[in-house]
């Protein structure tokens, strides 16, 4: 048995193994869900930035009996017979859902650009923020998701109105066998083209470094509709034009939402800190210390009633000298000293800290499953995201308002023995954004997906507690945040009940 052969074989085996590739983790094969409703009345739903769907005029399409249309349709039919594997990949990718895919793209870009200034070992200094992208943190992310979702939603309401106004029959009704399931709505204008162009324009404004990449994605998205047999070029063109008309209005809103000033170039936060109505002042726990993250993000224009939101600004927490505060602080310390693995898991799950797509991104991710299970069409998906993301941006703005009103120190500032399971954020403690944002998100989603309400509320409760498990928040941060988040979520629900969607 002990021949030279076996060792040689084993050596070759080893060499072969070292030449193999690492496994790739991808999303696997996605199933295409067929939407349960076409929402034929969608053109009457209340728009967000547009006054109404009639703000954008969609020209009358050529009749399907025209020669021009017949030529287009024939080209699509012939194209279906000659599709390439690359085309099929693109078709399958976008068939998962245009709104969902662009939301994923936005999450990826947020994670890429959500880079706070860091400590630079070479110079011993805090490295300056990238001039092209000076923003990072929760307010930055939440705003991107909200603007994207609003752009998609308004574009789709206009598209839906035109679809049922002109009623150009879908290609399937004209005998085209599409490669993937297509929603049975009139084909003109193409909803996918509207989504692609609206998303691309909005994200290009928000991520100027990515314009070319975004344009390539949008082009692929639009062409995938031709390759799939879902639209003809004139459908695509009309969808695109809606988005182009809409984009300028959205960019205008984005320019005037006061976010640009949130970095506080004049360092007014120091004055605010000195005047803060709380007995102990927050200080940066980083070494070296650095200015807080987006200190003026609490002034960003809200989507929902700002009076109602800021009237609910919670009162200052108990003073650090009070027994109540000392109890809250010792609770954090006790937790930090005896944190269980499960508490660590919860803290880590909800953290979504620097260089990630952030907590609002996680809720967008979680909403994806609900949307798929709910069989929502593109318009309804956009509505879900627009409701969710506006509520989350307002909740984030509210959090920042409270943090930079009171400047409450983080627990570890008062008890340096407290260790944290997640990154120590360079923001004041009160209120906890994980609580405010998650509670607002769960309130909105529970209204839209009532069957899931119990689970969603449990998730929000866990997210609210997670800051305590992290060792970065007092329980009163979490409680005040959750109360405020519920209120903001309710404002969104009230809006949802009145927007015309059933």
């Amino acid at each position, binding site marked *: 048995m002990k021949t030279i052969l076996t*060792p040689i074989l084993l050596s070759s085996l080893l060499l*072969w193994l070292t030449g193999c*590739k690492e496994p790739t983790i991808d999303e696997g094969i996605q199933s295409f869900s067929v939407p349960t409703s076409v929402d034929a009345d969608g053109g009457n739903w209340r728009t967000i930035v547009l006054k109404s769907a009639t703000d954008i005029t969609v020209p009358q399409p050529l009749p399907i009996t025209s020669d021009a249309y017949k030529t287009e349709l024939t080209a699509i039919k012939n194209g279906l017979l000659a599709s390439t594997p690359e085309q099929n990949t693109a078709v399958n990718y976008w068939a998962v859902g245009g709104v969902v895919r662009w939301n994923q793209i936005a999450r*990826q870009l947020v*994670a890429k650009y959500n880079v706070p200034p860091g400590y630079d070992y070479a110079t011993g200094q805090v490295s300056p923020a990238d001039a092209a992208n000076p923003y990072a943190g929760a307010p930055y992310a939440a705003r991107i998701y909200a603007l994207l979702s609003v752009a998609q939603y308004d574009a789709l309401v206009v598209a839906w109105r035109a679809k049922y106004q002109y009623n150009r029959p879908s290609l399937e009704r004209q005998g085209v066998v599409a490669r993937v399931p297509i929603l049975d709505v009139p084909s003109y204008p193409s909803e996918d083209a509207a989504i692609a162009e609206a998303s691309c324009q909005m994200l290009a404004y928000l991520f100027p470094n990515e314009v070319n990449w975004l344009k390539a994605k949008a082009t692929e998205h639009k062409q995938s509709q031709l390759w799939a047999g879902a639209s003809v070029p004139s459908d695509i063109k009309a969808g695109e034009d809606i988005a182009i008309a809409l984009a300028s209005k959205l960019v205008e809103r984005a320019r005037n939402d006061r976010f640009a000033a949130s970095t506080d170039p004049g360092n007014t936060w120091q004055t605010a800190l000195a005047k803060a109505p709380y007995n102990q002042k927050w200080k940066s726990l980083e070494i070296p210390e650095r200015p807080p993250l987006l200190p003026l993000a609490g002034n960003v224009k809200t989507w929902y009633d700002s009076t109602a939101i800021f009237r609910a600004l919670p009162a200052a927490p108990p003073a650090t000298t009070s027994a109540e505060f000392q109890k809250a602080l010792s609770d954090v310390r006790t937790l930090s000293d005896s944190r269980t693995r499960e508490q660590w898991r919860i803290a880590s799950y909800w953290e979504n*800290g620097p*260089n990630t797509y952030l907590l609002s991104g996680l809720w967008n991710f979680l909403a994806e499953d609900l949307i798929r299970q709910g069989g929502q069409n593109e318009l309804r998906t956009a509505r879900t995201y627009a409701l969710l993301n506006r509520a989350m941006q307002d909740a984030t703005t509210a959090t920042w308002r409270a943090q930079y009103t009171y400047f409450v120190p983080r627990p570890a500032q008062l008890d340096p023995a407290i260790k944290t399971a997640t990154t120590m954020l360079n923001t004041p403690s009160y209120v906890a954004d994980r609580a405010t944002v998650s509670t607002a998100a769960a309130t909105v989603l529970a209204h839209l997906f009532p069957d899931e309400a119990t689970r969603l509320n449990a998730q929000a409760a866990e997210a609210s507690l997670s800051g305590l498990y992290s060792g970065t928040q007092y329980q009163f941060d979490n409680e005040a945040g959750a109360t405020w988040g519920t209120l903001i979520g309710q404002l969104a629900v009230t809006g949802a009940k009145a927007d015309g969607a059933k």
Partner: protein
Amino acid sequence: MLNGNGYFCTTSADFMRLLTCFTVAFLFTLARQTYAQGLAPGILDGFMKGQRKASLAILASQETYDTYYINTAETKNPNLGTVTTQALTVVGTYGLGYDLDLIISAPYIRTQASAGYFPKQEGLQDVSGTLRWEAFDYKLGKTRLSWLFAAGYSMPMQEYVSDAMVRLGYGSKNLDGRTMLHYKAGPFFITGQYGYIRRGQVTLDHVVNNYDPSQLNPNSGMKVNVIDVTELIIRTGIVTKRVSIDVWGQQQTPKTEGTNIGPGIPFPTNGVGFTRVGTTAWLKLFGKVGITATTSTTLSGRNTGKATRVNGGLVLGL
């Protein structure tokens, strides 16, 4: 048997195939030691135990670093300070046959940082089991050359925290295959070994939420791939019945690029490598009782600490 299930690597080689191959390797041969954080390579050697002979080693080690590598650039972090890792490792070796050893090890680890807010981590790390097979033994005059193979498996003994700067280990289940050439002339010996450590996937505590250009899309859930490494170890020294002393160099190279240490980046996906050198001594005290000591330092690295380590222990022949 060997040519059944695809012996040619394709670009889409999947884990199951690898598992099959490793199982085959396991059946055919077997040998050596999975490199665990708590172990210096002081116990991975080319010396066979001998049939029905056993030994038990209890090793204590301390490793510290205040400088670490982000990719290959050295850095220090005032929010981390110095990281100190202490380990207590039990290693049992048993000669199943004159040419086949079983080696089992289990470390208990405590690690903490001197600054910042990273919590101390403490607990059992990875248990590993390795079979070492002396496949070929050739006498050249008074000297001997042997060719050995080893296959090992290691897995976490508990679900410890693996996604943190201060952590116990990778959290992955690993397969380890390696081959060794061992030459001994009188008291002098030299051993060269080359190994491949296949690290399984790790489920993070959270959904993958960072940007990674190689990420096909952001919907891959909570699982991440841990980068495999290849390992090269050369050691040489003298060994007698009472004493041994040697020097060694160890180089681990990540198989693929992986990610680099950074905020938001899951630690298990980092491409980790290093070059370390060290020296190990063993001294027989009396009867079957010996003591061993190792010291080592890191010359270069990638996404790991620039660590120095001392390690000492008791070796009992059974």
